């Protein structure tokens, strides 16, 4: 791949997302990316803004798993968070926070900080028209709001779990569930990821329960690797109140299809609008995340079970979702309904491509993405990628 434009990679330099991507570039015979670490970028925007406007591909990766970056984003989000009703930490309080792995700290404020940073990136990119940005900041912002994505996909005709509107607190949640004759809902903080800040709330005739990844400990609340079912009424209400105050997507829980008796759903990684990789996430529980007791299921088993027309319909939905975002890659959580009677798109993730040890045609996920990113830019002379010639509808993004 001689003459390919260099990559600029915005991420956490020490994170395996960055190291694995660098390895992938090397294996493709390309020079390593110019890494702009979030930690430094947040204090010194010049690290990115002062780079020359010459042909380059810009990849943005997750901010997570870095304590310094988390603190910086919390501070950045403070002015916007005040008065919203969510939990708020002043910059001074943030500075005093001890390192406490997994502790849940003002998720909405953190998200608002991230949004500010994304709009700053947008401004920098506008000054660099020769850069090709693989994921537009505005698209990343959309992907981090489950309330936006759920409604947008439904409007495009993609089946999603039906949202419950008009929920502001625990009382209205119960009220709306009664009205909709709904026994079980997912309550997900709309900017959460990796099943953090999430609960499955179930109304019982005698008692309500909340199955959640949040652990209530004496020193604070934590994102736990263990999914728990909480039955103490006060604690259920406390946790729900927190989730709702942070701004949550509330949607009907849809029974999932099974594989060999276990629940499962799929992570479908879309690259340039097409399904590139699928991971079957199998679990004893309806929450299938691999770090929460789920495991990678057998793709062959899945293909043996799924009816051909159901699979085709589901992948069509994935294409519609991917094309709704101006991103090279989108990681879609796709579930099939019980007994494969339909499918739903649960959510889509901007940074859903950390899928180690997967290969397709000999390429890892990152290698595949690199190849696809370069595919439309062979000459190295264009400043912006043109609209694909075969597609005219404005609904399609550049990556289809």
């Amino acid at each position, binding site marked *: 791949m001689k003459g390919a434009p260099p990559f600029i990679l915005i991420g956490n330099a020490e994170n395996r997302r960055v190291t694995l991507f660098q390895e992938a570039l090397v294996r493709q015979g390309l020079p390593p990316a110019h890494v702009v670490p979030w930690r430094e970028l947040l204090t010194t925007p010049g690290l990115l803004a002062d780079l020359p406007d010459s042909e380059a591909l810009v990849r943005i990766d997750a901010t997570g798993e870095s304590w310094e970056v988390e603190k910086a984003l919390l501070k950045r989000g403070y002015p916007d968070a005040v008065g919203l009703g969510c939990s708020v930490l002043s910059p001074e309080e943030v500075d005093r926070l001890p390192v406490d792995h997994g502790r849940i700290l003002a998720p909405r404020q953190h998200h608002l900080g991230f949004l500010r940073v994304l709009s700053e990136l947008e401004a920098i990119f506008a000054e660099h028209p020769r850069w090709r940005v693989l994921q537009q900041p505005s698209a990343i912002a959309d992907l981090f709001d489950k309330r936006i994505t759920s409604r947008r996909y439904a409007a495009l005709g*993609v089946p*999603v779990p039906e949202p419950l509107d008009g929920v502001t607190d625990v009382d209205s949640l119960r009220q709306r569930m*009664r009205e909709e004759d709904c026994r079980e809902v997912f309550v997900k903080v709309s900017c959460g990821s990796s099943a953090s800040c999430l609960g499955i709330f179930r109304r019982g005739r005698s008692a309500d329960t909340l199955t959640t990844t949040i652990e209530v400990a004496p020193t604070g609340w934590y994102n736990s690797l263990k999914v728990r*079912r909480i039955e103490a009424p006060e604690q259920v209400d406390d946790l729900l109140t927190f989730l709702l105050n942070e701004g949550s997507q509330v949607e009907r829980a849809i*029974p999932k299809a099974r594989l060999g008796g276990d629940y499962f759903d799929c992570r479908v990684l879309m690259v340039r609008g097409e399904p590139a990789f699928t991971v079957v996430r199998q679990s004893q529980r309806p929450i299938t995340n691999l770090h929460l007791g789920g495991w990678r299921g057998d793709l062959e088993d899945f293909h043996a079970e799924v009816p051909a027309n159901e699979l085709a*319909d589901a992948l069509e939905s994935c294409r519609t979702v991917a094309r709704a975002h101006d991103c090279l890659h989108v990681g879609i959580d796709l579930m099939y309904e019980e007994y494969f*009677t*339909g499918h739903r798109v649960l959510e889509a993730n901007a940074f859903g491509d950390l899928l180690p040890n997967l290969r397709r045609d000999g390429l890892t996920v990152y290698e595949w993405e690199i190849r696809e990113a370069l595919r439309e830019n062979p000459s190295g002379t264009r400043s912006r990628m043109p609209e694909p010639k075969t597609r005219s509808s404005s609904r399609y993004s550049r990556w289809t």
Partner: protein
Amino acid sequence: MPRYEFKEGSSNKFWEITLSGNSFTTRWGRIGTDGQEKTQTFGSPAEAQKEYDKLVREKEKKGYVIEGKGEDDEGGGDEGAEAASNPELEAAILADPDNVDAYLVYGDWLQSQGDPRGELIALQHAASQASGTEASDLKRKATALIKKHQSLLLGELADAVKTEDLSVQWHLGFIRSARLAQKDYDSGRDIAEAARQLLALPSARFLRSLTIGMVNYDGENEYGELVSALTESGGSKTLQNLFIGDFEYPDETEISWTHLSDISGLLKVLPNLRTLRLRGASLELGDIDLPELREFTVETGGLPLSAVKSIANAKWPKLERLEIWFGSENYGAEGGVEDIQPILDGKGLPNLKQLGLRNAEFVDALCKVLPSAKVLPQLEKLDLSMGTMSDEGAQVLIDHAAAFAHLKQLDVTENTLTDEGQALLPKAIPHANVGNQREYEEDYRYAAVGE
């Protein structure tokens, strides 16, 4: 008054219409609200009827589904519909359950007899051939038809579906899969009795998969009565997949509080079983003779010696996947390497490709015999996870790495390897999966799941 509902994507709407003489009143809005109301008057009752029919057709076309006539009148739409049956045509399906044509022939006959099942067969077949909105429309129609004729199709079990103690998969007019379980603490459903009703139900004549979840939330979760009910009902010649113990532990109950009981009699009346999965304690299996079985899984915190021996000496010549959780001595696990020697020798297991010897407290001893086990060369996947493998056991695997080189997967997760053992093993056997090791304490090592 007929009430139609439309639930799709973010839509959640209702539409009601009441005809009275030469006028009708429609009411519509979001489900859960009272909505708005409008009355229209026509020149004659006939004209009103005509307009009424037109509006109803329009709504149905848009995908609105009728919701019964009121809360207490669900499934009351069976007037004029009668169940018919034709043993000859059913025998054709039984003889070749994957032959869609046999269902369609029966469907035509049923339709000619006025049995709504005939229409259901036709709708479901059309849905299986369609895609996109056409498929959704057909599925919605099938769902509405099932609801309308639920007393004919489900008999007494209609109530179990309503309370979510029973979920069923309809396939070409019949129940293909069913899951029976008390839905939650509030359910008082007698699952054994429901299982009896299910096996006797005409709709379940071609039942292929049965899953049983919680049968009792108060105290011990006992499967004895359920097993007796299934056995006394004569079992099933069509059943291919059985899963007893589909509960979440430790939330719903502990695995050790669940008693699977003696299922040897049941297995004798399930001659076509292909997959069998069991979760719980106190399992007795007797002499296993399952000529069609492909997969066997038992998940337990304590497998009694008699069950170990049943498994080791089972007749299941077509078995491809075998997964055994042995459990903890503290919770009744018995037996060791010598008791599973027939498995290690691959005796009577010519097709075995995946072997799981999991959740065991004799993993180090197992590691010593595995490299020379006769069954090893034929395996693609070997799973030794959740046990008490120490670095010593791992070292044996490392020393004999070549014996494991052909495996697609070697799983030793959730054992008790130290960081050093975890680092060394994948160097010798690259496809070994070593993550999530548990705390290592000499002399205090237990299987991952006991209680």
